[in-house]
């Protein structure tokens, strides 16, 4: 057993530093989650509670497993043949790896925004209408029109694109594309929005707009954001989890994690000593 694995076993579950538990109802609960890519043990014995209607930030050095765990929550790892997940992840007390659960139904309730903006090569309108159409959320053209408008408004993009909804989504600027992807995700009225480094390809102004948007969205959605920017985690999140080498090292209220971390590794990371 390597040193890292030994450390992981020790800090797993209840062995890690205890911070105040989240307030309010728990939306997502993970218990003893392990993820393997072939022989690689990518996530080790992960336990976490994610409260409803708040922003949870996952931070940590590259390759620490934070994106991997994020992709477990909407089972996007299913598309990778060599990936294997054990343990239990519950959303609203329902096990999402239960074989009787339909993954399409699950994903319809969880929106996802990716690192690189990935609008479909379709019109702005069709990008947003994509989800409502495939899930049959609207029957008439006017209902879809209403969903498109309200989603674009929530994403703060409506004023910029309302006169060119028929133009291609790929013709927008990077920041606009990312907000279009957010509008696309919220068009199906999800409960949870997963964001995988949503601002890493954006300039500071576009980043500020997206962060502002995340802050507004948290009153209606449970948001989980993976980020490499500790300032961003501090700005947008209520709770923060620090990952290192596949282990969730420490989790607690964001201000506590950034001011008085209890684990040495967390302290080293947020003070810039490694990672």
């Amino acid at each position, binding site marked *: 057993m390597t040193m890292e694995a030994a450390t992981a076993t020790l800090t797993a579950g209840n062995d890690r530093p205890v911070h105040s538990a989240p307030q309010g109802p728990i939306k997502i609960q993970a218990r003893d989650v392990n993820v393997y890519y072939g022989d690689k043990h990518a996530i080790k014995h992960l336990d976490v509670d994610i409260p409803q209607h708040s922003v949870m930030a996952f931070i940590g050095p590259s390759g620490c497993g934070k994106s991997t765990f994020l992709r477990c929550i*909407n089972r*996007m790892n299913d*598309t990778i*043949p060599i990936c294997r997940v054990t343990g239990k992840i519950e959303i609203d007390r329902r096990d999402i790896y239960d074989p009787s659960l339909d993954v*399409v*139904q*699950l*994903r*319809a*309730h*969880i*929106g*996802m925004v*990716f690192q*690189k903006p*990935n*609008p*479909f*090569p*379709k019109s702005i309108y069709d990008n947003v209408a*994509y*989800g409502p159409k*495939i*899930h049959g959320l609207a029957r008439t053209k006017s209902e879809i029109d209403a969903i498109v408008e309200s989603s674009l408004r929530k994403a703060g993009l409506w004023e910029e694109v309302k006169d060119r909804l028929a133009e291609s989504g*790929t013709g927008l600027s990077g920041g606009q594309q990312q907000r279009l*992807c957010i509008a*696309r*995700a919220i068009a*199906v009225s999800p409960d949870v929005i*997963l964001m995988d480094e949503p601002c890493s390809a954006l300039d500071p102004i576009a980043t500020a707009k997206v962060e502002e948007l995340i802050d507004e969205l948290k009153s209606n959605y449970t948001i989980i954001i993976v980020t490499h920017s500790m300032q961003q985690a501090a700005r947008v999140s209520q709770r923060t989890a620090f990952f290192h080498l596949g282990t969730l090292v420490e989790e607690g209220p964001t201000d506590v994690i950034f001011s008085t971390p209890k684990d040495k590794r967390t302290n080293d990371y947020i003070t810039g000593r490694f990672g």
Partner: protein
Amino acid sequence: MVTIYLTVFAILALTGFFAGHRRAIAVAGGNTRALHSLPTYHGMYTLATVVIPMLIVLLVGFPLVNMLAGQSAISHFPADLQADALKRAATMRDIVNLAGGRSMASVTGELQRAAASYSNVLNIGNWIVVGLGLLAGVGAIFLATGRISLTFRARNNFEKFVLAVLIACSAVAILTTIGIVASVVLETYRFFFDPAIKGKPGISEFLFGLDWNPQAAMRAEQGNIQTAYGFVPLLVGTLLITLIAMAVAVPIGLLSAIYLSEYAGPRVRAFAKPALEILAGIPTVVLGFFAALVIAPSIKGFGESIGLSVASESALAAGLVMGMMIIPFISSLSDDVINAVPQSLRDGSYAMGATKSETMKLVILPAALPGIVSAVILAFSRAVGETMIVVMAAGLAANLTFNPLAAVTTITVQIKTILVGDQEFDSAKTLAAFALGFVLFFVTLILNYIALRVVQKYREQYD
């Protein structure tokens, strides 16, 4: 002689390389960092300066000597023989044969003197060429090594030489194309406008005529049978067979591409993709007799069992097999195009809760559509130009019909039929093949151009 020349050529080129290499090291006094270019480049530069003049001497010298020898030999014969191209060529053949020591039936004194003079000039001339080449090569080595100094830019000069070689190679391909097009256009022009060609149709008669029978034109001198060079039945036959082929190949090719790229596991894919591509490697003549001996009789048998009259060589048989031939084109190209759609688009769609088939229909196929269209157009132009299958399975009768169960003929089949065997190149019948070839070329050119434009548009689609 040429062998000797080539041996000298090779030796001098190698000598040039090593001379340049050593000279560069000597100039630098062993410290090669002081040189502008690496010693190898000085060697290659010297080699290039040897190759250029020696190649010119080779390509100009030997044909020139040959021509001079021929002239000196033929001058032994009377002027009227020299003026007649046919007799002149026949005599030249005799001279060359005699000079080469092959036995002749009747040898006149004149011929003997001509042959002697021919060998003489050839022999002396060739040695002069070899001498010139040697001189040029050795001179080039001295010239090149003389230029080598610390600051001499051997690399830049050698790169210019390489650039010239690259240009020459692409020029060969382009000039060949131009040459082919020019010859087809020239013969087509003769077919339509040369007053010496009898029995030829007018352009509108050719393009819009409804009868095709080049044999009637051959017998025009014997009886008063009207010439028939109407292009329409051939065009209809070609399009009928091509459309049948596309109706087979597009759905099968596209659906198998979708299966291979999105649904098949890596193990199935590793086996199925090469297996599909083997189909592309089957010679069309093999597919042709498969069509003629297996498919056509079964279609005839099946058709007659349900009370249809089916020709033994039907458009359907040829079209089905041609469709089989172009399946790999469409499936392989479409597979590449579908795989080129970024994974991020798939992820985006799956994360929205879309199923695999929704993602395929709504995101991947629209994104890949321009590429798929260009694959289909390329396959189409390939089908229009296909010859062997239709020769064997479609028949020769130029029926103007849209019935897939009747025998039809295609442009390519008629070109082949016209040009098989001995031909005189001043009859309308033979030249008609060039006119057909020109039309065929024009159609495929336009299709390829459309495909190219679609592909260009496709490149701008995402990112």
